[in-house]
């Protein structure tokens, strides 16, 4: 004990104590940083089955916390955070927490779209044609907004409202032709379903969707103008065939 004390005092007197302290800190700080890093790294990859990736978007009109993330209609995860970035110009970064079980590639795109005409938004991930490196935790991908689709949807909605109004009018006009009206309504519902299925299935080609939407809208325009011009003929022409 006595010699130990002496030794300690001797060392402190020589400045070795101070030196030991400094060298200890110098070596320990990086060692702790590295150990923590390894623990976090190992723990993170072992403990979680999800990863966070970022999507850069220009506006968040449809994107909010909880928006589902899908690939080919299969739900992978959800948007957990959306925050604005002010430089270089105002834009937004959405954090997507998605499962690791599906292979995604670095160059994949995130299309922000509506999963049905009712207007529920969804982030649809799409793998590129050419497969490169895997998408990893923390990667940033570009968000593509299909704003035009939304416009068309609005148009279709307006149109449908109009059609419904006309149909209601005609229900009052002709009680007998109710069955035919029902047929029209159901055929309209079928066409809406078609639109939906087009939206869901033909994601590969947005232009096609837009084209078919336009076509549908045109047809509906024609139908409605025909009904306006000659409602009776229109209603009963189907019966003849």
């Amino acid at each position: 004990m006595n010699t130990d004390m002496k030794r300690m005092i001797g060392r402190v007197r020589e400045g070795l104590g101070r030196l030991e302290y400094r060298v200890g800190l110098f070596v320990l700080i990086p060692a702790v940083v590295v150990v923590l890093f390894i623990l976090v790294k190992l723990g993170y990859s072992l403990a979680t089955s999800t990863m966070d990736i970022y999507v850069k978007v220009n506006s968040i009109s449809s994107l909010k916390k909880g928006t589902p993330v899908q690939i080919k209609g299969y739900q992978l995860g959800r948007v957990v955070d959306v925050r604005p970035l002010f430089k270089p110009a105002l834009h937004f970064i959405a954090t997507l927490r998605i499962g690791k079980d599906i292979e995604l590639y670095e160059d994949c795109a995130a299309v922000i779209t509506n999963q049905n005409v009712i207007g529920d938004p969804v982030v649809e991930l799409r793998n590129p044609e050419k497969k490169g490196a895997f998408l990893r935790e923390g990667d940033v991908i570009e968000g593509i907004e299909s704003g035009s689709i939304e416009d068309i949807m609005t148009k279709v909605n307006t149109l449908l409202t109009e059609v419904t109004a006309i149909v209601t009018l005609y229900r009052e006009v002709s009680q007998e032709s109710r069955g035919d009206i029902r047929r029209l309504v159901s055929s309209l519902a079928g066409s809406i379903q078609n639109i939906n299925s087009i939206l869901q299935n033909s994601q590969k080609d947005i232009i096609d969707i837009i084209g078919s939407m336009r076509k549908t809208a045109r047809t509906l325009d024609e139908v409605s103008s025909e009904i306006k011009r000659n409602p009776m003929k229109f209603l009963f022409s189907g019966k003849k065939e």
Partner: protein
Amino acid sequence: MAPLLEFINVSCAAAEPVEGLSFSIGAGENAVFFGVEQSGLRTLTQLMLNLEELYSGDIRYRGKTLQGLDYLGKLRYKNEIGYVHGDYGLISNMTVEQNIALRLDYYSEYSPGEITRITERLMGELNILDKRKARPVELTASQIFRTAYGRAVAHDPGLLIIEHAFTGLSPLNISSFMDVLKRRVESPDKSVVFVTYDPQKFLDFADNFIMLYQGRVVFSGDRREFRESENPYLVQYRNVALEGPMDIR
């Protein structure tokens, strides 16, 4: 009992070759090796320190040969001996105290407290206690020599070899050191070997005087013989004469 250090017909073809060296130094005996430059003193020291390994004949320390020692055997031998040389070779970034304690710190089983006691006692004996925190650059020549001596005897070796150690020191400082040296020289089981150009300095200490010339022993005798012998080599050396059997250049 086997002598402390024994050379049996040792020949070595080094830069300063030696041939057929045979002598023995008993425990407690002190010897002086002297001669002119290039007489083989250097090689002799190297051989005693086991730094020169290519030689014929046999060198024995306490009856055991030094020939073909392995790594650890060499270390053990070096731990049995002490050595002070003219260049001193103090570790320049260590203090006097650290230099003296070096070997103890490194090898011995002493506790730090015991090491401090030993070094303090040595520094006290050598009159350098006030310089314990000084580095070699702050010391005078004789203080450096005293520190080197302290380092060489810190582990209390059986054999101490002092080679050309007093060069560059003032005679007065040497005399004050001689008192310290005397205590070691007089102890019955410790031997000191001096390798020097100036054997007269050690007249009071040494039991054997051995003179080398061209790598061979040309004179060997005790104190009285050293003073009185008519050996022509010795006479020439004693008289500092240029005329004689030795060719001095």
